[in-house]
């Protein structure tokens, strides 16, 4: 059977064209961000905009991190994100373990999962208004703990659904075997289940970390000083200034992107599963 001309010539050409333009549309903005971050102040004031920097320099990075002191915000971000991961995974596991490994009524399990799903639809701006009042009353305004609490709550739905997916894949018989041999529930969990679930738990942790890393609205509202401000708040401060320093702003953008991109390389197999609550599995 002869294949029609369209299939032989037209389709591959169309595919190349489409993928090529997508490549440009995604590559160029990121190129422009990076290139701008390498420009010197003098070059930014040149009358024509240079598409390629003439004297690339890392001055903007040291200006952002040290002269402006943003490394403190970076440190805050790491502390907040790491604590969020720990709290979310522990609470997520406390909820997921009983409903996947222990005999609970199906209605309870479905109810918990539905409730977690509904939290995914919760609009942060509606929650932050009362949360702001609470934070000020209990005097944790401008402290990392205020962010850790609310980030953990908003990431819990992901954690529950992802952990549920990973735990149900591990056969119950493996734990039962340990229990028959006289191990306690705790030992069976710690020595048998957790090592088997470790890759999934790690992946969930990485995804929660990147979500918390990106978060901006709560950080903007609940922090005021470098005591608790996270990196995205610092980036925002550079953007809305009266006179924008383009290279510093671009450098801060590059720094904000770097860590999630590195983590993404490790967690790439699971990111779509996480975003779709485990519906889409990468083989």
């Amino acid at each position, binding site marked *: 059977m002869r294949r029609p001309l369209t299939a032989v010539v037209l*389709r591959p050409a169309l*595919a190349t064209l489409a*993928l090529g333009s997508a490549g440009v549309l*995604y590559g160029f*903005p*990121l190129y*422009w*961000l990076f290139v*701008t971050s390498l420009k010197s102040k003098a070059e*930014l004031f040149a009358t024509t905009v240079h*598409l390629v920097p003439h004297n690339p320099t890392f001055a903007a990075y040291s200006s952002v991190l040290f002269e402006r002191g943003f490394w403190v915000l970076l440190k805050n971000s790491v502390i907040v994100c790491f604590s969020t991961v720990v709290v979310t995974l522990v*609470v997520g596991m*406390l*909820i997921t373990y*009983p409903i996947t490994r*222990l*005999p*609970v009524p199906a209605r309870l399990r*479905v109810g918990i*999962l539905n409730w977690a799903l*509904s*939290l*995914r*639809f919760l*609009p*942060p*701006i*509606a*929650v932050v*208004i*009362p949360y702001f*009042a*609470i934070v000020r009353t209990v005097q944790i305004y401008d402290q990392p703990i205020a962010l850790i609490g609310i980030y953990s*709550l908003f990431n*819990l739905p992901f954690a529950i659904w992802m952990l549920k997916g990973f735990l149900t894949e591990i056969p119950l018989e493996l734990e039962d075997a340990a229990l028959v041999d006289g191990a306690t*529930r705790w030992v069976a969990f710690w020595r048998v289940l957790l090592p088997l679930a470790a890759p999934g738990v790690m992946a969930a942790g990485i995804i929660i970390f*990147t979500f918390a*890393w990106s978060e*901006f*609205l709560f950080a*903007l*509202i609940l922090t005021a000083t470098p005591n608790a401000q996270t990196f*995205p708040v610092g*980036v925002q401060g550079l*953007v*809305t200034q009266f006179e924008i320093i383009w290279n510093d*702003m*671009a450098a801060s953008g590059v720094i*904000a992107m770097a860590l*999630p*991109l590195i983590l*993404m390389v490790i967690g*790439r197999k699971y*990111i*779509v599963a996480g*975003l*779709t609550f*485990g*519906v889409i*599995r990468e083989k």
Partner: protein
Amino acid sequence: MIRAWRRLSRDERLAYLILLPALGAVFVVVTIPFVLVIIQSLSTEDGTFVGSVNYSRALGNPLLYEAIRATGVYTLIVLPIEILLGLGFALLVHRTVRRPGLRASIYVLAILPLVVPPVAIGVVARLIYAPGYGVLNVILDRIGIAHQEINWLGDPTLAMLAVASVDVWQWTPFVYLVLFSGLQTVPRESVEAAQIDGASGWAQFRYIDLHYLRPLFVLIIFFRLADVLRVFDHVFILTGGGPGTATQLLSLYMYRVEFKFFDTGQAAALAVVVLVSFSLLYTLIARVLPLERA
């Protein structure tokens, strides 16, 4: 009560001993803000009860309807474009790209935008659209399309398109990834049978692929809608809601009422209205979601 507890097996008791405190704690943490926001919405700043005054102020404010309109326009631009582009790319790659290495690289490149902080993407957009340094005008000038500087962020329509383009840039890959992996579940035999029968590419899509993708569209709409309705970050960075109120989406509007006008009563009333309408929307969509709940 105690008798019922005794009748449970050891494992069942353990399940409740773990679940009760964990769920109880989360339930309290979730419920306190809900209760508080209702109280806030019914009282003034100093806590005196004023009934529905805040609600009538919130619902009588024309800015609210501008914000709802802007959010609607944004959603109606962004969702169809993302779904159509994502579907187009998924079909294209599925049918023409055979090399596993290339498929894997496209996968990695497609998840890249999903993990980038929206604030950073707002910065990128600023470097593209902003007057003065924005590279889009530079490029349009160099290739000779427009020699006058176009004020992308100063015109209401262009600003809305600019803000929407950022969303499309970041989230089309998500739609692509979901639909592409959906296409991998289409059984090869039915496609081959259709091809032998001489079915066109369109017929293959219409009668075979679409059948497998349909539940995924619901899924995409659910997750995209949850995010689109809460969009804040990149709009705040790129336009701050302007020019005027052209890109002042619902979240930006509520942010302004609470943290720029310091009108907590009105903001809380808005929050309650938003929470109620979002729960209604949620119950409508969640029913048809193809999630494994077992």
